[in-house]
């Protein structure tokens, strides 16, 4: 197990280094640097002045030298200065990450239980009416990306023209005074809906497979009630596959978070990423990328390790 973990960690670190190197080079492309110079000094600089400024600021040193220097800074906790917010990146980033963490927490709280229940109910009697109904709903939700469901939900629940006006169409106040049902329901639902169908389908497939196993039949023939079989025998084995799926959902969730934070004006990590990219804020964009990449890789690691732990049949050797 330790060797397995070590190998995974090694691959993860190598991946992280490669990814940050790619991001670093893409962010530091020559046209980006020229734009930065013109933004920082004056839009009417000549090419020569741009060249001089970039050299003075140290942007024209060899790529490898700058990358290693930046990486060293990141490891030591020095993430540089944000040009958009005129503050240290770490000070800008930390509170935004917290806000997105709150959003993610509620999304997972809504999405995972409902998806699992949907999948289990559909999968325990394959081909039944609930199965068909739930499967159709699940296909529907996977066809509804966040920018569609966000618009539809806003129209239904928040529009002043025809809507029910139950909830607020903006989550801006949630960032300041804390989330309430009124300002947080729509953003949370919007993200949860898109991921829900996929997890439900995976759970259903896993559950349906388990229900055909011999030991389930044995238990039924021994006289265990259907409920007992589902809850005690099937569920534990059926939930291994969805666990991996949920963990691997995080990269998609990140895209959803960005869309929803823009759509509902919730100024968290996703909003920050868009601000950084739109304003050519190089160091902030780099920091956002590092955070995003680390989250994705960490969830992959947890999914691998968790899968090995949950499923005794997969005892990884070496």
């Amino acid at each position, binding site marked *: 197990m330790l060797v397995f973990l070590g190998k995974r960690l090694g691959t993860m670190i190598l991946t992280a280094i490669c990814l940050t190197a790619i991001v670093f080079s893409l962010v530091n492309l020559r*046209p980006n640097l020229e734009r930065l110079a013109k933004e920082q000094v004056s839009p009417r600089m000549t090419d020569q002045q741009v060249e001089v400024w970039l050299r003075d600021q140290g942007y024209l040193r060899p790529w490898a030298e700058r990358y290693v220097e930046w990486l060293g800074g990141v490891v030591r906790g020095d993430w540089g200065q944000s040009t958009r917010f005129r503050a240290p990146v770490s000070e800008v980033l930390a509170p935004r990450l917290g806000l997105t963490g709150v959003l993610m927490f509620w999304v997972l709280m809504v999405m995972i239980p409902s998806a699992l229940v949907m999948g289990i109910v559909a999968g325990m009697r394959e081909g039944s009416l609930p199965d068909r109904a739930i499967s159709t709903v699940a296909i529907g939700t996977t*066809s509804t990306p966040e920018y*569609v469901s966000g*618009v*539809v939900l806003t129209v239904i629940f928040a529009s002043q023209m*025809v809507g029910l006006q139950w909830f607020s169409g903006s989550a801006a106040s949630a960032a300041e005074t804390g989330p309430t049902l009124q300002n947080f329901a729509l953003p949370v639902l919007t993200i949860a809906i898109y991921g829900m169908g996929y997890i439900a389908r995976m759970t259903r497939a896993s559950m349906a497979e388990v229900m055909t196993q011999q030991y389930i039949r044995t238990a039924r023939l021994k006289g265990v009630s259907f409920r007992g079989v589902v809850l005690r025998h099937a569920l534990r084995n059926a939930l291994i596959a969805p666990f991996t799926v949920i963990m691997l959902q995080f990269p998609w969730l*990140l*895209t959803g978070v960005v869309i929803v934070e823009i759509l509902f004006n919730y100024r968290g990590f996703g909003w920050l990423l868009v601000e950084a990219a739109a304003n050519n804020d190089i160091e902030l964009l780099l920091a*956002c990328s590092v955070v995003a*990449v680390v989250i994705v890789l960490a969830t992959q690691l947890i999914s691998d390790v968790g899968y090995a732990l949950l499923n005794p049949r997969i005892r990884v050797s070496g």
Partner: protein
Amino acid sequence: MPVEFLSTSAIVLGILGRLLPVFVVMLVVMGASFAFRRRLGLYGQLYDSGIGIVGVALVLFWLIAAILAPVVAPFDPYVQVRELQNALPGALHPATDEAFLLGGDALGRCVFSRMIWGSRVVMAIAPAATLFAYAIGITLGLPAGYFGGWLDTGLTFLANLVLAFPVILLFYLLVTPEIRQTALPGTMAAVLFAFPLVFVLVFLAARFRERPGVLALTAVPAAALGGVVYLGLLGIWDPTGAVAMDANTLNIFLAVVFVTAPTVFRIVRGLTLDIRTRDYVAAAQTRGERPTYIMMWEILPNARGPLVVDVCLRIGYTTILLGTLGFFGLGVAPESPDWGSTINDGRRFLRLFIHPALPPALALMSLVLGLNLLADALREQSLKD
């Protein structure tokens, strides 16, 4: 001058009237397909299930709407009518008395016409991008799964590298105005667009190696045609102007292909790993067939079932990716009628006016739903066999 409006029933009738050509073509195509479904293979089997028919209907609707857009859409998608800014559905054009069936957007453009024209953008890019991603995924996935070893390790690492990138971050880095000033899109295009050509040539060469006559008859035209398309796509030499993409579209296309290809690679690699152990592969190996023949003509045809299902899902997913790009205004031309951009334009005023954002949102959803239902029906059919 006050704007006059149509009644609700007149709006519904008007929309149905504009869509009449689409429905007629749909009826003809689907009726004929249904009648001959026993002879149409996999496509015909779709008509055996309700889900399949709904899926075909939704996809076909948007496909035909995209083709017939000049007939169906009453207005030019870019023309602005100042009197009809944010006009409610059914508003009449002050000069011509033609109706903005679904109202006007913030700039006074016809929402209905933009939705119809927007389907062209999706229908042109999404299937093509999926096919390119498939060419790349198959060309790399087959050898990775078949040979294994360092080739597999290396390619899998690369695929995982791209997959570990949050899509949205990759888009923000790859689809910027600045990046167009560098050599990066050109280089990426040169590499990625070469794969379909390589795939087709290897495919033919593996089969007709022993028969130079047939090989010359098939491979030479394929190479010529592929070469022309390749040069055209890269913008090096395009005599007809049919294949060249403008810089915006090229950038979007590349980003979508780049994001999709690693997933396809993983699927193909997994299928190859499975099929490689079958008896017919061992038989071919014993006969002394070359690896390219076994991969292209033994493994690939036997992997087609899951791949066909995935193509449908993948086109739907590509549609969602295109919408995401449009929603963030990345790489799309200004005022483009594509669905993502129109949703983004409309959502700013959503609390006051719902009609500009809702139609493209529902359009995108119905198309993706159609593709997902198609995939589901195909999967069911393949399980029956």
